[in-house]
């Protein structure tokens, strides 16, 4: 498990993808969120379509809203979700 990140999906994304989490192997030196996204899109066309269907996709790294340039390292938790609609 040393070189893995946990990827989570919420709301419409989770529903469309049909799963709420993935475990993804990345280099020990880390990758950007953009690179991680490309990696999971190439591995699964359903994920690629679901992410493409979200023009305002948000990302959180370790439960903090982040940019797509943020570096992700093994052990991190990365969540993708649509814009939030609470209240």
């Amino acid at each position, binding site marked *: 498990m040393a070189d893995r990140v946990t990827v*989570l999906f*919420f*709301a*419409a994304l989770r*529903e469309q993808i049909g799963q709420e989490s993935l475990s993804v192997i990345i280099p020990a030196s880390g990758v950007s969120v953009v690179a991680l996204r490309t990696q999971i899109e190439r591995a699964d066309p359903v994920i690629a379509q679901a992410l493409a269907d979200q023009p*305002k996709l948000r990302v*959180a790294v370790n*439960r*903090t809203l982040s940019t797509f340039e943020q570096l992700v390292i093994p052990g991190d938790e990365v*969540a993708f*979700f*649509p*814009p*939030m*609609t*609470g*209240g």
Partner: protein
Amino acid sequence: MSVHVTVQAAPFDVGVEADRLSTLSPLTGGIGLFVGQVRGGQGLRAMTLEHYPGMTEAILHALAEEAMARFGLTGCTILHRVGRLEVGAGIVFVGAGAAHRGAALMATSFLIDRLKTGAPFWKREEYDDGRAIWVDARETDEEAARAWMNKPAA
């Protein structure tokens, strides 16, 4: 505890929550409250609220602490429900106690405006005809949250 934050499936009692805010400090002179509930109409039957456990609580605590400091509050409460909620059910309670009404009312607006687009909750609507639709974020809600960047403290 001057800050009270929970994410819960159970209903909340507005009277109990108002009493909690009113008894926190003898310096409290006013309390602002906002309750959001499931709005019916156009065949809407219920909503299901999903959230990101762990991140939600952290964001709501940070938001409450920000309001405490920014508006000089004596107390701040944010309660948000998750799960399936029928028309008329309470979704969210925000409350702010302060020495004077200006800070209490402004803090109440601040809390709900920022919560709507800044805390990881998502709403899925269910209709009488069987349709289920994830609610889209409204641009006006995002503008309301952004506007607090430029407003003065109380």
